[in-house]
C-alpha cells in the first residue's frame, strides 16, 4: 500500500515537472503581460503632453519617468538587497541605499523594498529571480560573485529590470557596476585602493622592513584586485620588502584579530601590516602585543579614532556610500531611460585618511573635510566614511536605520555628472574581464592586467 502510494506520488511529481519544464522554454506569462502593458503605455505616451505627468502617473508612468513600472502599479518597484551576515559595512550600505528611495523626490515615484540574502550563490540567484518575478523595475544589490550570478542578472535585464551592483563588481555587461575598487582616491593620481594603501604603508615605514598581508575573503575578485595591486606597489616602490606571512582575514575583525595575534607570535619583528576590512582586529591585536607599527586599514570608526590618537596608519577603503550612489544610479536609469547614456561602469571616489588628515566631525553631521565621528556616536566597526561627494544627502541617521531624517531631500544625478565618473576604459578588464571596443588587453602602468588603446 505504502509503496503504491509512493510510486503514485513519484509519477505525479515526475509528470508535473516534465510538463513544467516543457513549457519552461517559452517566456513567462507574467513577463508577457508586463511587456504587453508596457507596450500599451508607450503607445499612449506620445498623445500625452508633458504637463499631464500626473495623469501619466495614474496610467502607470509615475513622475513622468522614461518607462512605465513593469508590474503596472502606480510606483516603480525597486529592491535594495544586501548580504544577511550582520556586517556593519553591509548594513550601512544597504541603509544608505534604502534611504534614497524614501527621500523626496524619489519617494513619490518609488516603492522601495529591502531584502537580505544568505551568503551563498544559490540563495542570491533564487532571490534575484524572485525579485524579477515580483515585478522589480530595478534591483540594487551586493553581488556575491563576479561571475556566478551573471546568468540570473542577464535574465533580469532581459525582463526589463535595471540591475545595479555596488562595491564588488560583476562581469555581466548589462549590469551597472558602481564600485571603488579601480577608482582613484581623492587627491591621488594612481588608481586602485591596494596600490595606494601599500604605497602609503611603504612611505610610513620609510621604504623598508617586513610586513604582514591580510586578505579579505580569499578567492574573491575584490580581494584579488587589492592583493595584486598591493603587490604591484611593492614591486615598483620597495622591491626589497618581504611579506613575512599572509592570512585570510575574511573581512571580519574577529578573524583579523585572531590571525594577527597568531602571526605576531611567530614574527614579532614585523614593522607594518597591510590589513583590509576588519582592520580594527589588526590594531587590537597589535595593542595587546604592545606594538605600535604602521597599519593600513579600511574605514572603521575604531581605526580612525586610533589615527586621531596618533597611530601610524592609513585609512583607505570601501565607502558604504556606494549603496546610496548605486540606488541613485538605478533611479537615474529609470528616470532617464536606459539609452540616455548613463555609463555602465562608474567609479566611486574614496578618501585617504592618515593621522595627519584625520578630522573629527563637529557633531554627527557632515562637514566638509571631517572624516571621523566623535567618540561614542557610532560603534567601533561602523565605518566613519558614510559621506561621499557623490552622496551629499547622506546622514548618520540614514546609515543607521535606513530611514532618512524628515525633510532631507535627495540630489538626483544628471547624466553628465555620472558620465564624469565613468571608469577609465583602461581598467575595464579588471572589472569586466573584457576590454571595451577599440581596446585590447595589455599591462597597466601599475603592473596589473588592463586594457590599452589599440
Amino acid at each position: 500500500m505504502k509503496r503504491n502510494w509512493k510510486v503514485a506520488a513519484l509519477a505525479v511529481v515526475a509528470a508535473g515537472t516534465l510538463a513544467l519544464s516543457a513549457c519552461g522554454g517559452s517566456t513567462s506569462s507574467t513577463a508577457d503581460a508586463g511587456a504587453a502593458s508596457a507596450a500599451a503605455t508607450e503607445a499612449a505616451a506620445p498623445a500625452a503632453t508633458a504637463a499631464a505627468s500626473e495623469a501619466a502617473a495614474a496610467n502607470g508612468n509615475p513622475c513622468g519617468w522614461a518607462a512605465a513600472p513593469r508590474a503596472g502599479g502606480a510606483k516603480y518597484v525597486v529592491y535594495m538587497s544586501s548580504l544577511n551576515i550582520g556586517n556593519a559595512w553591509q548594513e550601512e550600505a544597504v541603509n544608505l541605499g534604502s534611504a534614497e528611495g524614501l527621500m523626496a523626490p524619489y519617494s513619490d515615484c518609488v516603492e522601495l523594498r529591502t531584502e537580505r540574502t544568505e551568503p551563498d550563490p544559490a540563495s542570491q540567484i533564487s532571490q534575484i529571480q524572485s525579485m524579477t518575478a515580483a515585478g522589480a523595475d530595478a534591483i540594487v544589490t551586493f553581488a556575491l560573485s563576479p561571475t556566478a550570478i551573471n546568468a540570473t542578472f542577464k535574465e533580469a535585464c532581459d525582463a526589463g529590470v535595471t540591475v545595479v551592483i555596488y562595491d564588488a563588481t560583476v562581469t555581466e555587461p548589462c549590469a551597472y557596476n558602481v564600485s571603488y575598487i579601480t577608482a582613484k582616491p581623492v587627491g591621488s593620481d594612481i588608481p586602485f585602493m591596494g596600490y595606494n594603501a601599500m604605497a602609503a604603508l611603504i612611505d610610513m615605514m620609510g621604504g623598508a622592513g617586513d610586513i604582514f598581508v591580510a586578505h579579505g575573503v580569499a578567492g574573491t575578485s575584490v580581494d584579488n584586485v587589492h592583493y595584486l595591486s598591493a603587490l604591484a606597489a611593492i614591486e615598483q616602490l620597495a622591491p626589497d620588502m618581504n611579506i613575512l606571512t599572509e592570512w585570510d582575514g575574511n573581512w571580519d575583525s574577529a578573524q583579523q584579530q585572531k590571525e594577527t595575534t597568531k602571526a605576531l607570535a611567530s614574527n614579532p619583528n614585523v614593522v607594518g601590516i597591510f590589513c583590509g576590512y576588519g582592520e580594527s582586529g589588526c590594531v587590537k591585536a597589535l595593542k595587546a602585543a604592545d606594538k605600535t607599527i604602521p597599519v593600513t586599514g579600511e574605514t572603521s570608526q575604531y581605526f580612525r579614532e586610533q589615527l586621531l590618537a596618533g597611530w601610524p596608519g592609513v585609512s583607505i577603503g570601501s565607502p558604504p556610500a556606494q549603496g546610496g550612489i548605486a540606488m541613485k544610479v538605478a533611479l537615474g536609469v529609470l528616470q532617464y531611460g536606459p539609452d540616455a547614456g548613463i555609463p555602465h561602469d562608474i567609479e566611486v571616489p574614496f578618501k585617504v585618511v592618515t593621522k595627519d588628515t584625520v578630522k573629527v566631525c563637529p557633531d554627527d553631521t557632515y562637514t566638509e573635510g571631517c572624516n571621523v565621528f566623535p567618540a561614542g556616536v557610532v560603534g567601533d566597526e561602523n565605518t566613519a566614511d558614510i559621506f561621499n561627494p557623490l552622496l551629499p544627502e547622506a546622514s548618520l541617521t540614514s546609515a543607521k536605520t535606513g530611514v532618512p531624517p524628515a525633510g532631507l531631500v535627495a540630489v538626483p544625478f544628471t547624466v553628465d555628472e555620472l558620465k564624469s565618473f565613468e571608469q577609465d576604459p583602461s581598467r575595464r578588464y579588471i572589472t569586466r574581464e573584457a576590454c571595451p571596443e577599440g581596446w585590447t588587453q595589455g599591462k597597466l602602468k601599475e603592473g596589473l592586467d588592463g586594457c590599452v588603446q589599440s
Partner: protein
Amino acid sequence: MNTNPGRIRQTLTDGTGRAVFFWLILMAIWLSLQSTQGMGVDLGQIQSYLVLSLPLIVAAIGVTLVIIMGQFDLSAAGVIGIVNVIIASTLSSWNPLLVVVLMMALGGFIGLVNGLFVILGKLPAIAVTLATLIILQGLAVVILPQPSGKIPPFLVDGVRVPFVALGIIVIIIIAWMLFKRSRLGLYMFALGADPEALHLSGLPVKKIQLKIFVLAGALYGLAGVFMSASLGSGDGNAADSFLLTTFAAAAIGGTAFVGGRGSAVGTLFGALTLLAIPKVLFVIGVSDWTQKVAFGLLVLLAVVAGAFSSLRKDREQLLVAPYSTPTEGELSTATKGGNA
C-alpha cells in the same frame, strides 16, 4: 489522493511521505501567494528553481548513502568546490561528457581516499572528512584565486532547457534502483543497521564501505558539475554552503542519522524543501533578521516532526509485536534443554 485521516497519518510517519507533504505545503504557499500578489506562476522560475536544486539533490543523495551505511562525510562541499574550479579553470573547452566522467572519477577518487583513511586507517569518518574538506577548500583557492572562467556551454545549456526536470527524474530513478534494487544498496542498509552481522554473513564489509564512499564521492563530483552548470563560472567559495545543507536535506527527507534508514526520494524532497523555504519567505515578505529565524524554525519543524512521528511509531511497534507461536515439536524437546 488521501481522504482517510489514518492514511495521512500513516504517510506522515514515513520519512519520504513527510518530506513530500512538507514540500507540497511550501510549494502551495509559494505558488498561491505568488499568483495572488500578481506575479503569476512563472514556469521559467520553477524551472530555475529546479536547476538550483539539482546540485543539492545529487550531493545530498551522496551524503545520504554514507549516512545510511552508518558513517559520516563532510567532504561534499570540498569536492563540489574543487570540481567547479577545475572545470572553470582548465576544462572549459573539453568535451562536456568527458568532463562529467572525469569529474565523477575525481570525486570517486577523493571518496576512495576518505574511505581508505576511515577503513584502513581506522579513523573516525567525521574527522577524516573534515580534514579532506579543509584540504579541498584550500586547493580550490589555490587553483582559482578569484572567481572567473567559463563552464562548457553545453553543460550550462544542458541544465537550462527542459532537460532539468528530465534529469531529476532520471537521477531519482537511478538512485531509487541503487537504494532499493541493487546488491550494494541492500548491503548499505544492512551495514548501517548491523555491520557485525553483515561481516558474519560472509560479506566483505570493508569493501562495501569503500564502495559507498567512492560512490558518494562520484555523486559529489556530479553535483559539482551541475553546480558549475547552474552558475556558469568558477568560484572557489561557491560550494561552502553545501557542507550543511546536504545534511539538512537528508534529515528533512527522513534519513536516520543512526544509519540503516533513509531514502533517495526523501532526500530529493528534503533538498527541494530547503530551496523552497527562501522562496516562501520572499513571497511572505520576511526580509530582515526574522529571515534567519524563520529558516531555522522551519528546518527544526520538519526535522522534529519527523523525529516525533518515528518515536510514536517505534513505541507502537514495541507494544504490538507478534508472539512466536510454538509448534508441536517444541513440546517434546524444550524440556530436555539444560544441563542440571
